[in-house]
């Protein structure tokens, strides 16, 4: 006899959503760490940093 109070387990949609979320999280991290990341663009093409911009009016 099966125990009616036994936990039925995780629904299928949870497993599918979990796998998709995990895969997308891995893709996101890999893309950002491998070259396309923002950390390589510290200056982002700015011609003058803010500190050197103060005397431009003289």
């Amino acid at each position, binding site marked *: 006899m099966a125990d009616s109070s036994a936990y*039925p387990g*995780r*629904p299928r949609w949870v497993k599918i959503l979990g796998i998709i979320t995990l895969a997308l999280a891995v893709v996101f991290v890999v893309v950002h760490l491998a070259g*396309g990341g923002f950390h390589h663009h510290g*200056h*982002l*093409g*700015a011609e003058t*940093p803010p500190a050197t911009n103060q005397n431009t009016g003289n």
Partner: protein
Amino acid sequence: MARSSVRKLALTAHVTFSVGWMGAVACFLALAIAGLTGREDQAVRAAYVAMNVATWAVILPLCLASLLTGLIESLLTPWGLFRHYWVIAKLVLTALATIVLLAHTQPIGLLAHAAAHGTLAAEVQSVRVQLLVDAAAALSVLLLATVLAIYKPRGLTRYGWRKQHQRA
């Protein structure tokens, strides 16, 4: 009676902040598209400056408010925080979106600074594309969270199952 009013207030706040967050991300996406495809230099620069303002003044506060009110609401209602899978899934998606948003505030700020003070060099093209892709992904995640909140797919966690049987 008083508890019911508090629940409704929490629900109203959570829906307002969440919908506002989604709308603000949609605007961010529109600005990212305008910044990437625009032909007029002034308009492109303005788009990136506006994206930075929107991030700090609207998106980030709404994101944190949505997360906080969601937590409060789950604790005030019989749904709980760890009893139903849809609540956990929504919490995980919101937490991930918040982390990703926090990680993007610096590059958005740097891009806005570059747009305001210098030229947008070709090397930042990948960052501009990245922001567009991430905004589209964020909008998809928020839409998914909305679908979960409305449909509330079945599925009790082990903890929720135990609690339900304790009450029965």
